[in-house]
């Protein structure tokens, strides 16, 4: 009898035609995919194609760029700003993330302090820094009042101003993944390490820090890629001579030099992708994300 039943059971799940089970995920992402293709991928490709097709198919724009001193200066400036900002957010963000992971009662307060700027527009925050760092801004006034300066210091429109403002704006992108990774760490691991003879610093260096690396990598990658293309903040608080790639692109677009702007955009995109690929290669970000998810 069981032999008679078996073929029927085997045949049952095979519905004719479309395999709905497999189609469901595709259907779910389809709207987003269509949206991205139409409104993001297509314009980007159209823009990038200009770097290769204007006025006729050519690589001349890229070859020109390699010898363009303005570009090289702007490119190195962008990279160095990005590196400084990434390091700054990491050094400031890690201790805060650590505090967030350890705090119990203070957690909501810290979370609000971290997230409040996150919910405020970048433009507003950049203007706020202009107010703070201006010639008669709060920072100068306080330093003058304390007698640490005898005349106002030039803060606004310097590389330092860009770096300070960008670190502040990007800090949540560093803190949140790290705090998340730290929270995922089983607290009995730190106890086990202490019980096995590791002092507080030893526990941090040998257990907490290595286990939080997935979060650190995610934060570094986010901040690095975001600050690479930052525009509003460096444009508002940075100096005119400390141009970044995005500022240069905007300038060329205003001058209607589309081919040049498109070429710069391609370089910016390629740099971001290269950084992501490098992270993937060296640190295995994919596995890192999976590890922290556990």
């Amino acid at each position: 009898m069981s032999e008679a039943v078996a073929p029927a059971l085997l045949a049952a799940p095979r519905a004719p035609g479309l395999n709905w089970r497999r189609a469901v995920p595709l259907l779910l992402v389809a709207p987003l995919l269509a949206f991205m293709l139409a409104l993001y991928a297509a314009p980007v490709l159209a823009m990038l194609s200009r770097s290769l097709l204007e006025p006729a198919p050519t690589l001349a724009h890229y070859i020109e760029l390699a010898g363009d001193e303005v570009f090289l200066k702007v490119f190195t400036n962008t990279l160095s700003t990005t590196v400084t900002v990434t390091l700054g957010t990491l050094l400031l963000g890690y201790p805060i993330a650590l505090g967030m992971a350890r705090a119990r009662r203070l957690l909501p307060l810290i979370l609000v302090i971290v997230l409040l700027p996150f919910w405020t527009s970048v433009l507003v925050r950049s203007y706020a820094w202009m107010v703070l760092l201006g010639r008669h801004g709060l920072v100068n006034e306080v330093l003058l009042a304390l007698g640490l300066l005898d005349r106002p210091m030039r803060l606004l429109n310097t590389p330092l101003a860009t770096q300070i403002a960008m670190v502040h704006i990007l800090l949540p992108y560093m803190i949140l993944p790290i705090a998340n990774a730290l929270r995922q760490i089983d607290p009995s691991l730190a106890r086990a390490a202490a019980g096995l003879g590791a002092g507080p610093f030893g526990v941090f260096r040998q257990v907490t820090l290595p286990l939080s690396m997935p979060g650190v990598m995610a934060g570094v990658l986010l901040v690095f890629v975001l600050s690479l293309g930052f525009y509003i903040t460096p444009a508002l608080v940075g100096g005119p001579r400390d141009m970044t790639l995005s500022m240069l692109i905007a300038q060329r677009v205003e001058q209607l030099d589309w081919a040049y702007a498109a070429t710069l955009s391609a370089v910016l995109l390629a740099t971001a992708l290269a950084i992501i690929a490098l992270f993937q290669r060296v640190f295995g970000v994919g596995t890192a994300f999976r590890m922290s998810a556990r």
Partner: protein
Amino acid sequence: MEGASVTLSGLEKRYENFGAVRGVSIDIRSGEFLTLLGPSGSGKTTTLMMIAGFETPSAGDIAIDGRSVVALPPHRRNIGMVFQNYALFPHLTVAENIGFPLKQRGVPKPERARLVEEALELVRLPGYGARQPRQLSGGQQQRVALARAIVFKPRLLLMDEPLGALDKQLRESLQLEMRRLHADLGITFIYVTHDQEEALTMSDRIAVMNEGRVAQIGAPEELYDRPENRFVASFIGESNFLPATVRGREDGVLVAECAGTLVRATCAGTPATGEAVTLATRPERLRFVDGAWPAPPPANRMPVTVTEAVFVGERCRYLLRAEDGTALVLKEPSSAATRRREAGERAEVAWSVADTILV
């Protein structure tokens, strides 16, 4: 190597207004296998955490080899510890995990490798050093955690339900390994479990905990045969509780009236005549009176009615009711030669005076 002696005196831990541990005093001898046994929430883990140094006592003292360690941070106490979830470092290999305590103590690398291999052999996992913890089964992870806890030769090893997450068969084989390891190393073990069978088979002594206090401490047989209170009598094994009224003393044994019959019990104290007491006796120590058995006194006898008979394989379990309605349980080894009783049948049960205790 000599095991450490541990003295807990008046140990307390309060969380806000809640007392998790409320005055625990135990003298743990050098080389002893002591188990803290108790139901969930009885304060076993909290007690262990205070010994390890992860929790600070609210009151009382912990002395190891006569020296108070309360002020010492955990990493200075030199105590081995096995956590319930093993707490293996996921970013380190098995060998690096086991080598961790040696590294903290500045043991040079070649020496470390040798000791790690030795420890792996001791827990029967030779050649597993290069693996990642997550590549091991639960039982293997448990043994790595054990190896890591003993590799630096601590004189005291704490274990918090180390076998809790494993299946029964694995648990039994690891229990035996744990005993062997205890005998080989000669160090003091403090073991936490809520599994009474585990506690009975492994321990030199058991401290039964209830609501943050030690209900009784003693060797396994002592706890089983002479529980001092109702909690211990019901938590370790099964007990029949008989409400009784004291009628007097006779040849050093207590005579009490229970369900209309006189019952004798061993009893250290001297309850007054007329006092209401509770007597306890184990189900497997009751017998049906049948022909020659039991021999005449010193046995207690009582007429009962069988209310339910359950065949459990190796034994039969009977639910009985005494004249006054007191429910009793009797366990009888099953045998094709003994007649099985039916529900509703009247019978007489007997048990020895030595197996009757006042709780």
